[in-house]
């Protein structure tokens, strides 16, 4: 790891000032991706601004049909939250199956979505639930947030403060996971909402995306059998040592069917 200057601001405003004034600054949340990346010298920021001391960025609040999760809330906190387990059990289950217990004690919602790993779990939930990402500057619709592999709609030095998740009628996330890393080889999040079915796919393509064709197929009939003839486009799928494109395309359908069945 190369040298850097370390800062631990106590407020979002202070963090924004620090990152704006840094030559090549990086925000760190739980550090479960950034620190390994820095160890490999794939990142060498001049300044690391640790968001861990900012109380206003952490915590879970349920207000009517909106579940607000602070960006610095850990996966373990989301998984264990009785409020989230009641309001959106699929979100708690998703968080409880990221990485391993020690990683979940450090990793955060904000860190996960800001990083936008193509195989991360949270992006699928943010898109499929129609969540809103709140930053220190504005609100961004979940489906507009993830723009490309490891790229998001965040501007330079913009800080995610919280994510608002609307409560669905029912939702489920199914992933076919890499047994070593627990990252999704393919993950599908489906939600039945008052506005109709919503779905998002992660792991399969360059980054998590809204699955319009799955939603269309589920529009008239929200059942696993409604997807019997569904075919995900093979040419858009990732292919690597873990799974080829055809296999991933098949997994999209299978995970989607399992997720829909689990909503019943």
């Amino acid at each position, binding site marked *: 790891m*190369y040298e*850097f200057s*370390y800062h631990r601001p106590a407020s979002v405003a202070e963090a924004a000032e620090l990152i704006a004034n840094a030559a090549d600054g990086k925000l760190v949340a739980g*550090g*479960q991706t950034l*620190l390994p990346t820095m*160890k490999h010298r794939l990142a060498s920021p001049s300044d690391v601004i640790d968001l861990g001391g900012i109380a206003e960025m952490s915590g879970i609040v349920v207000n009517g049909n909106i579940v607000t999760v602070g960006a610095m809330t850990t996966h373990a906190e989301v998984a264990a939250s009785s409020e989230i387990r009641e309001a959106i059990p699929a979100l708690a289950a998703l968080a409880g199956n990221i990485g391993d*217990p*020690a*990683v979940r004690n450090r990793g955060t919602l904000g860190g996960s979505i800001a990083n936008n790993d193509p195989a991360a779990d949270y992006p699928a939930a943010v898109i499929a639930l129609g969540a809103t990402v709140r930053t220190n500057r504005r609100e961004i619709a979940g489906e507009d947030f993830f723009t490309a592999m490891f790229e998001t709609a965040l501007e330079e030095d913009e800080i995610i403060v919280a994510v608002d998740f609307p409560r669905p009628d029912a939702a489920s996330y199914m992933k076919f996971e890499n047994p070593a890393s627990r990252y999704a080889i393919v993950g599908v999040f489906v939600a039945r909402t008052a506005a109709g079915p919503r779905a998002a796919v992660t792991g399969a393509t360059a980054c998590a995306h809204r699955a319009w064709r799955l939603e269309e197929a589920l529009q008239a009939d929200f059942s696993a059998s409604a997807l019997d003839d569904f075919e995900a486009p093979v040419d858009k799928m990732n292919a690597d040592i873990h799974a080829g494109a055809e296999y991933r395309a098949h997994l999209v359908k299978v995970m989607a069917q399992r997720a829909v069945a689990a909503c019943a």
Partner: protein
Amino acid sequence: MSTINLAVNGQSVSGEVEPRTLLVEFLREQLRLTGTHVGCDTSQCGACVVMVDGKSVKSCTMLAVMADGCDVTTIEGLAEGTELHPMQQAFMDNHGLQCGFCTPGMVMSGLDIVNRHGNELDADTVRRELNGNICRCTGYQNIVKAIRAGARAMGD
């Protein structure tokens, strides 16, 4: 350099660290608490698991400066004098180790499992919860047995 003040195994300690110093490096190289191991150094194997404010973390993937003000417990903080902690004793009684390299992390993760799931653990829960700790010797059978026995003993 940054000055950090924290509690390690119940004792106040302070240290001068570079911001890039990992928590595990601080524990091993400055405090000479070498029971916490570095296995993979990529947050996968769990040999470096310690408790920070009562929660298990991989100390190879946390900066020492991030632990400023925290309460850290390492494997050295478990025994009372010569009397092993029930979880340590259970690893001994159940032959829960062979080479022993992964054992400190296994014991710490075992304690974390007890904290979250209580004293009566089924084997499936232990196996699932141990997915961040890798052992290359035992095949896990006796580790699972040891954690279940240690959990029960902690409730006695």
